[in-house]
Every structure is written in C-alpha cells, then in structure tokens.
C-alpha cells in the first residue's frame, strides 16, 4: 500500500497516523508487526539493522545489536517482509552503506517486490540522495526525508519540494530515544514547515498524551519507536503490551 493512500484515508476519517518503528530480527518480527497493526498502527517502519547506527540512541542501538546477533541480514529481511501479509504501508529504515553495498537499484527493486513502499535513510541527506531518489521514483517507492530543528532556508524549501510519502520531522536535536519533554521545539518546527504534504513527528514520543499534543499542533502523524522497542527488550508479554501501547496512542490521535 502506498503511503499517500493511507494518509488520504486517515484524512477522511479525521485521524492522525500512528507510525510504529521496530527493528526487524529483534524478537518474533512477524508476530510483533501484527500486534502493532492490531493495536491500530497505520504504517509500520521496519528497521534493517546496521552495525554502526549513528542516528540511534541506546535503546534502538541495543535492539539492532540483538537483531544482528540473531542473524538478521538484508536477504532474510526481504524474505521475511514478503511473508508478512499485511494491509498497511511498510517502510524500511536503514543506513546507507547497506543500500550501497546491495546496489541501489537492486535494493529498491527488493523493496518493491517485498511490498515495501517507503525508504528512510537517516545518514542520507538530500545532497547525496539523487541516485537513490531516481530508483525510488521509478519503482513507486517513496524516499522519505527528515527535517530537523536545524533545517532552514533554502535547504528546507528543497526538502519540501522533493519529499514524497510524508515528511519526517525530528522533534529535537539528538538521537532516537524516548523523552518526557518534547513539546517546545516540536511546535516550533511544525509551524515553520509549511506544506500540503503530510508531516509526521518522531524522536522521543512514547505516550498517548504526547502524541495528542503533537497532532493538535498540526502534525498528520506521530512516529513511535523506542517505546515499542523497550517492550520488546523486556521480553514480557511482548505482543499483548505492544498492542496495548499502540491502542493507547492511536486512540489519542482521533
């Protein structure tokens, strides 16, 4: 499913999108993805683990390490995604070297063949993304760009013009990880980013109350990662608690 179709659908229902991130290969990914979707996740962002994740904080770093230790790799990743059988958009989040090494064209084709319709690469700024962008466009896959509190001026304009799928607004300076306080800079970024394209805010969101605040401030979606990964790391009633947290957050987005 294309990301834009999902946002169109949510718009008619007047709902914000819950975008859930987990790292593939950390735990029973198929079961985890279904639990998130049963809890109301609208889009699932599946991390493809890389050995040197510079944009990630300790929670997701640890998840990536567990996934790599468990043997996750790009071949297995695409195999697994192919078998998922879900009707929400799937997005791959990974670092550029894994894409580069596989070959840009092959990577995007693997995405398409396995049902992935979006790509997020946190260490690939628009300056370096031309070639990957062309393969994505040719294959009906969205290349999703990040916008940081420090993104301004011409660069912001350029990203707004290029971005497809949704715009990934980083709520604050820093790496991924749950935080209690994210409000201030988020509102500022949301006000500054003027576009018709859907805006989703990520980095630090872990509760329904935070998510509701962000939707009220003008976002069309929230991205929640570390809070889900914490549950997976605990190993306790994982599917049940993932579903419950997804439900809690999703119910605050309506």
């Amino acid at each position: 499913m294309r990301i834009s179709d999902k946002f169109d659908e949510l718009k008619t229902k007047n709902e914000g999108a819950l975008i859930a991130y987990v790292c593939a290969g950390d735990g029973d990914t198929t079961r985890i993805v279904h639990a998130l979707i049963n809890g109301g996740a609208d889009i699932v962002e599946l991390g493809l683990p890389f050995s040197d994740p510079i944009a990630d904080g300790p929670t997701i770093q640890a998840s990536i390490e567990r996934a790599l230790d468990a043997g996750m790799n790009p071949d297995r990743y695409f195999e697994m995604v192919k078998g998922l059988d879900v009707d929400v958009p799937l997005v791959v989040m990974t670092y550029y070297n894994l894409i580069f090494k596989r070959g840009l064209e092959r990577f995007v084709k693997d995405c398409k063949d396995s049902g992935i319709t979006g790509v997020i690469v946190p260490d690939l700024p628009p300056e370096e993304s031309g070639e990957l962008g062309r393969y994505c466009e040719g294959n009906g896959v969205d290349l999703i760009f990040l916008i940081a509190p420090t993104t301004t001026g011409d660069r912001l304009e350029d990203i707004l013009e290029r971005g497809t799928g949704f715009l990934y607004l980083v709520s604050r300076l820093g790496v991924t990880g749950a935080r209690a306080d994210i409000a201030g800079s988020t509102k500022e970024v949301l006000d500054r980013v003027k576009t018709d394209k859907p805006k989703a805010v990520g980095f630090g969101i872990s509760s329904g109350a935070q998510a509701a605040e962000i939707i009220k401030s003008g976002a069309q979606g929230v991205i929640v990662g570390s809070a889900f990964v914490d549950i997976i790391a605990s190993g306790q009633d994982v599917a049940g608690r993932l579903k419950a947290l997804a439900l809690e957050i999703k119910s605050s987005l309506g």
Partner: protein
Amino acid sequence: MNIKQKGKFGRFGGQFVPEVLMPAVKELEQGYKQFRDDPEFKQELDYYLKDFAGRPTPLYHARRLSEKYGITVYLKREDLVHGGAHKLNNTLGQALLAKYMGKCRLIAETGAGQHGTATAMAGANLGIPTEVYMGAKDIRRQRMNVYRMELMGTKVIPVTSGSQTLKDAINEALRDWVSNVEDTHYLIGSVVGPHPYPTIVRDFQSVIGNEVKHQIMEKEGRLPDSIIACTGGGSNAIGTFYPFIPDTEVKLFAVEAGGSGMESTDKAALHSASLCVGEEGVLHGARTRILQDPYGQILESHSIAAGLDYSGVGPELTYLAETGRIKPANTSDDEALAAFDELSRMEGIIPALESSHALAYLAKAAGSGELGEIVVINLSGRGDKDLETVLEKGVM
C-alpha cells in the same frame, strides 16, 4: 534546485550525515573558508605551532639505519611535537577555528589516546571545555593517555558499544554532536568524516610535508625518491604527501596495519588495511574504502597499534590510491614490533607502534630498490605510550 553535493575527491568523500548535522557541516565549511586565509587567524596558529607545539620539527638523517639498508633515510620527527605525535598540528588548528567560530565546547574521539591528548592540550591552552570519547578497550590498553587527558581537565567518556574501539568512539562523538550541535565543535582527529573534515585536517597536517620539502631541499638539494607514512585514518600520511602530489617522481607509500593476518572472520578483520583490501562503501559520513562484510556491515579491525585500528580510511587517500598516485602497502604486527625494536636500538628513538609500521616498510622494501636512494619516513609519534603493549609482547 538549491541543494548540491559537496566535497568529493573523484567519487569519494561527500556528506553522508544525519539531517541535523547538515547545517553544522555547512557552517564549518563556511567558517573554514572565512578564517583559513585570515591574517590574524594564520598568525595566531603559526604562533601556537611554533611556541607551543615546537615546530618546525627536524628532518633527521638516520645514519645507522641508512648504513644498514644502504640508502639515505631521513626521519621527519613528528614524535617531537608537543604531546608526542603529529596530532597537535590538527587540534590546534581546529580548536582555534572553533574559537573564531564562537563555539564554546570541544568534543573528540580517540583511539590510541593521542588525538584525545592533543585535543585536551589545545582545549586547555585555549580555555575551551573538552570531552573525549574513547572505546573501553582502548582505555584499557592506553591508560597513560587517559590520565594525561584527565590531568589537563578533559573528561574522558568510555564507549562500551560495538567493538569498543575507534569506530565506536566516532559513532558516539557523532551522536553527541547531533545533540549539541549549536555550541559544540566536533574536533575530528583524522582525514575522515564528512566534508569539510578531510580537507580541513589535511590542510592543518600539510605543515609536515611543507617542512619536509623545504628541509630536504636544504639538505640534499633535491626531492626524495620516496616518502613512507603509516596510515590509519590517514592524516599524517596525507599531511606529509600533500605538498608532493604534483611531484610525480616522488613515490608515496601509505602503509596500513597488516595486523595478525590479511584475512577476516565473520565480524572482524585481523588487520586494518582498508586501503589495501577494503571495498567501497560509506562510513562516518564519507564514501571511501572500508572493511565490511558482503552485506555492508562494518567489520571490526585489528592492529597492535591502537591509532591504526580503524575500519575506514580518508576518502582522499582512497582517491589517490585509485588514481595510482599513492601506493597502499601494509606491514604486520610482528614486523612493526621488529621495527620498533630496531629504531630504539639503532638510533636511540623509541617510535610509536603506529609509526613503526612505516619503519617496517623500509625493512621490507629497501632491498627491492623500489624506494630509490633517498627516502623520508614520517615518524608520526613517539612510543612511550606503547611500552606496556610492547612489554606484554615480550620484545624487551
């Protein structure tokens, strides 16, 4: 379209960093452009290099070594730079630049602790608070440098993720920079990372090569036939080579760490020779040759010299290797130890284990005639920091 690619050496280099950092690398590029030719900045840097760092360093004719190998061997004595390695050339330059740019905090990564120590020196001297990320494994094998940094008021932060060495320290420093980009300068220690770092660090280290050129003309009346430098990230190598790039008759040897063998296991290489056997990829913001598995996961590297123990190499060196201007080579842990021993005994100079890899290449190649008649070896640092390692290996 407003956005353009920047900072490439051929197809290598670039700016593969998180969006949060893009404005920071652009600001740095801008700041560097503004100040590098600023008379006041240049004068101040010259002053520090001379009176604080102790430049120029001698180009020393190693008489007994020359006799043994039957060619004229000169050592560029970067071991005599304050702190004991070439690293201070770069840290003084960058710390001063950070000050001119109004940054009030320095962070750095360190492997051997040499760059961390040099950053601590520059930070203390210029009065800028400094924090250094260092792999927990390196902290154990380079304890003295940890104490030195702490004595100078620098906070040393142990990195326990990944392989707990230099690459992980860089990851952690990048994460810090992402979080504190507005007031912090990331003082990277080699010609690696996103543009403009490989250029900035090369320029600050080129003082080595510029001096060599002047000194060898004075002593020999001609350029050397070859120059040898050890290569981790590649800053002492490119700093020595750079002024000689147009002089194509001068052979340039970049000697990497051959470690305990040129093979790799599943997760780790037994060496650090990314220029010799690495494959093209993107690491720490730059496209270059890196040690990686068939999927693109970064392999841990190995060297007895902590400062060479890195899975990547500067993009400009990769470019120069690709074009054939420099020759990548490697020497093993054992060969480096033998060279360490030899220089200590024959010349009364205890070299850093990193620099010992360059010295070992002399022993390896002198017989073949490949080096010509006059060779300059960059002695990038002194070996005091390595005594424990060497003792453990039973060389002494």
